[in-house]
């Protein structure tokens, strides 16, 4: 509902030409939408402890790197996280790169803080840092239980 209201509000804004050095008029509506996306992202990354911007969905990833992030989180028993499919929303896809100052997808956030992409998450998983970072979020990694069982 909120997104519907926001979308309607965007449509109702009037077009204003912004003065630029080059003879290029950037519609005010586009600027407003870009600003809205950035503002929305600011809220989206804080709403949930773990947030992933990916290609596809956790049930059906559409990219090997996005799938790797999903698999790593699953191994640690992290099933309850927010996953945003950038393939469904080009504005989000470009907006999140600007927001994070990060050029590629997937992107992972913990408690509103940017963690990195697939490579970083994988290395954190391999060196044990991911277990510690999840603990800081109040998430007990499933790998700790499987380690206990094996001992």
């Amino acid at each position, binding site marked *: 509902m909120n997104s519907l209201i926001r979308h309607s509000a965007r449509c109702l804004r009037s077009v204003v030409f912004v003065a630029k050095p080059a003879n290029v008029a950037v519609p005010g509506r586009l600027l407003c939408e870009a600003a809205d996306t950035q503002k929305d992202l600011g809220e989206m990354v804080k709403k949930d402890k773990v947030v992933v911007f990916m290609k596809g969905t956790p049930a059906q990833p559409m990219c*090997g790197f996005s799938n790797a992030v999903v698999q790593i989180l699953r191994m640690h028993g992290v099933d309850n996280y927010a996953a945003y499919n950038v*393939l469904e929303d*080009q504005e989000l896809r470009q907006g999140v790169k600007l927001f994070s100052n*990060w*050029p*590629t997808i997937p992107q992972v956030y913990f408690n509103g803080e940017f963690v990195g*992409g697939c*490579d*970083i998450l994988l290395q954190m998983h391999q060196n044990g840092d991911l277990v510690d970072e999840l603990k800081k979020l109040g998430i007990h990694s499933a790998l700790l239980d499987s380690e206990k069982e094996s001992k």
Partner: protein
Amino acid sequence: MFPRLLRFATPTSTRLTLTRPLMPRPPHMDPEGRRPVEQSIRTKLSESLCPDHLEVHNESHMHAVPPGSESHFRVLVVSGRFEGLSLLQRHRLVNEALREELSGRVHALAIQAKTPQQWEGNPTLAKSPPCMGGSKGDHTVEEKLKAGGGDPNLGS
């Protein structure tokens, strides 16, 4: 008699156009098989990070993009400049060095950024996960492959 004469009187230019037309080369494929994007990545990482060891792998063939593409890369950078830096800081340095490529033709970049000591302890190149076909039918990838220069609005 006249049809035979007319046949041989056909202007050369017309005859050429009636033969097989030249096949247009896809804009993203270098005609001489050089690898300009790979070379550029190598040069920029060398200049900005002075690596002890550098590997640049074009992994485009592992993805749903045309043969000969330079869209998906894996880089391994071993540099003392990474000492004391977090993984995120290291990757941001690499991203910054390749900003132009990443806003242009490079769709995906896998990064391993190690200090010389870390590399010595574990000198292995990581492997990229198998492609799940996300680039297929992705018009932004098509646009990136056609783009010669950088467009900050195009991305992964």
